[in-house]
């Protein structure tokens, strides 16, 4: 177990290191002056026209004239100390901007993760346990259908229908800015309702398919047949034998989904004007605010790697067979 753990942790650290390195070279080797990516496109052309010396001094400040090796070490240092410079959009430190958005995204993504996971899991067990029965016949096509519709399409449709046509929910944003305490909480919940439902719907359909296939594999395993021939009741077979084994791949994938908690809802956040990480990333990208975009990317990559590591550890704990190579 110890060896397995160390190997996994080393792999994760290495992965993060490679991602950081790639993102460094991505800026340096892209077409165009790297300075353009550092100060922003508009600022760059403005300075190029009016004040080329200022541009030169910025290049000096960022050390763009230094050898690549020196630049690289400095970049690593700035990543470790979380110093990503100033965002062009509002002249605040990038890190501060990002951390002020994170809680809004988490407010959407944690309930999505929990509700989608539970609902998808339960429905998946039921459908996989009795394939071809009514529940399976109704839910599987729906889940398959949801997999073929891009989430932004469903988002736009839902917005048009529920917010504009029926006026059941507010059009966008997170609050109406009124009240405190309970009133405010209720207001936020109202704004959350539609984006959250869509996210849960998508997550649920994905988890449903996963659990269904995992249950239907276990259903034909030898130990299930043995349990049935011992004369155990269906309920006991399902809960004691089938579900326990089907849970393993499900748990690991739930764990891995945690990696997407910060980056998974970009589309929905953009459509519903939800000012979280996703929309911050989108705004950064569309206004060519490269430091912010880069930091958002690194954070979400970091989350994914950590979640994968967590799921590896979890598998090692639940199913020690994998730790022996």
């Amino acid at each position: 177990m110890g060896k397995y753990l160390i190997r996994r942790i080393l792999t994760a650290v290495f992965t993060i290191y490679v991602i950081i390195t790639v993102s460094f070279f991505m800026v340096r080797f892209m077409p165009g002056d790297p300075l353009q990516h550092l100060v922003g496109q508009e600022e760059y052309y403005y300075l190029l026209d009016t004040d080329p010396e200022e541009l030169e001094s910025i290049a000096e400040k960022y050390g763009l004239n230094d050898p690549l090796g020196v630049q690289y070490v400095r970049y690593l240092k700035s990543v470790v100390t979380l110093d990503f410079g100033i965002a062009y959009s509002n002249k605040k430190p990038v890190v501060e901007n990002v951390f002020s958005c994170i809680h809004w995204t988490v407010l959407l993504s944690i309930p999505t993760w929990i509700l989608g996971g539970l609902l998808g899991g339960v429905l998946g067990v039921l459908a996989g346990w009795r394939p071809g029965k009514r529940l399976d016949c109704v839910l599987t096509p729906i889940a398959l259908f949801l997999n073929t519709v891009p989430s932004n399409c469903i988002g736009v449709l839902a917005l048009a229908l529920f917010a504009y046509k029926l006026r059941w929910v507010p059009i966008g944003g997170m609050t109406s800015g009124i009240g405190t305490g309970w009133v405010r909480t209720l207001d936020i919940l109202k704004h959350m309702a539609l984006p959250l439902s869509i996210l849960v719907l998508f997550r649920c359909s994905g988890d449903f398919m996963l659990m269904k296939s995992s249950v239907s594999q276990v259903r034909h395993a030898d130990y299930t047949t043995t349990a049935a021939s011992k004369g155990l009741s269906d309920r006991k077979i399902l809960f004691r034998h089938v579900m326990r084994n089907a849970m393993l791949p499900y748990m690991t994938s739930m764990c891995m989904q945690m990696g997407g908690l910060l980056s998974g809802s970009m589309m929905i956040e953009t459509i519903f004007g939800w000012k979280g990480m996703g929309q911050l990333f989108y705004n950064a990208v569309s206004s060519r605010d490269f430091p912010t975009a880069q930091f958002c990317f690194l954070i979400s990559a970091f989350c994914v790697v950590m979640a994968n590591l967590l799921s590896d550890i979890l598998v090692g704990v639940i199913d020690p067979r994998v730790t022996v190579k």
Partner: protein
Amino acid sequence: MKKRKKVNIPVLAGSLIIGFFVIIAIIAPAIVPYDPSATSALTYGKPSPEHLLGTNDVGQDIFSELIYGTRISMVIGIFAAVVVTCVGTLLALLSAWYGGVVDKLITGLTNLAMAVPGLALTTLLVCYLSPGILSIVVAISITAWTGTTRVLRSQILALKEEPFVKIEKAIGQRDIVIMGKHLLSNLKDIILSRGAMAVSSAMMTEASLSFLGLGAFGEKSWGAILHYAFFRNGVVRGLYWWYLPPILCTSLAVLGFMLVGYYGQQKR
């Protein structure tokens, strides 16, 4: 013994959908009533005999845009899928056939690429690269090949142990001949269905990117039409003839490729 092959209905339906869109994409210039980029004075026009799906905020004919959008969406989807499938297959062949260091390297690379949040990296890349069809394809392909490589690698590892491959190897057949003649021809069903799946996911990614306004510059795909419908008040004003058609087209095309890919690999 029945000789007649059973018709695979989902695959047939999928092929029909794909065929429909391919034909539309090819004959687009012949059937559009207007130049899709030509503006006119009639803005936010309702559907009428002259403009089947109305006009947008700058008076462009939405029906013509949609027809031309088919071209862009299909070209990007198929182009990206070809790149993804070729790269994925090549890496799988190299890693499974040669094993050893090559295998270790490629497997490591695959695991690494799988640990990167795909859409985020794609978005970031599009932002750095100059906007155009080629950079969209590159950005979509950069993390999408991993699935194909994984699946094919394990398939080739199994094939490697088959007698007919071992015999070829024993009589000293060149690697490239074995790969082309035996491995690839045995895997062509899987490769094709992975390819169809790759088209559907590439089209979805493209739809998301261009919905965010990060699509190919100057070339309006379905996603881009939806982008304008959403950000230029199409949804606010309830102009369903503007935002609904691109959604339907995207979903239908994705469904077509998905059907072929998903049901195509099951044993008939």
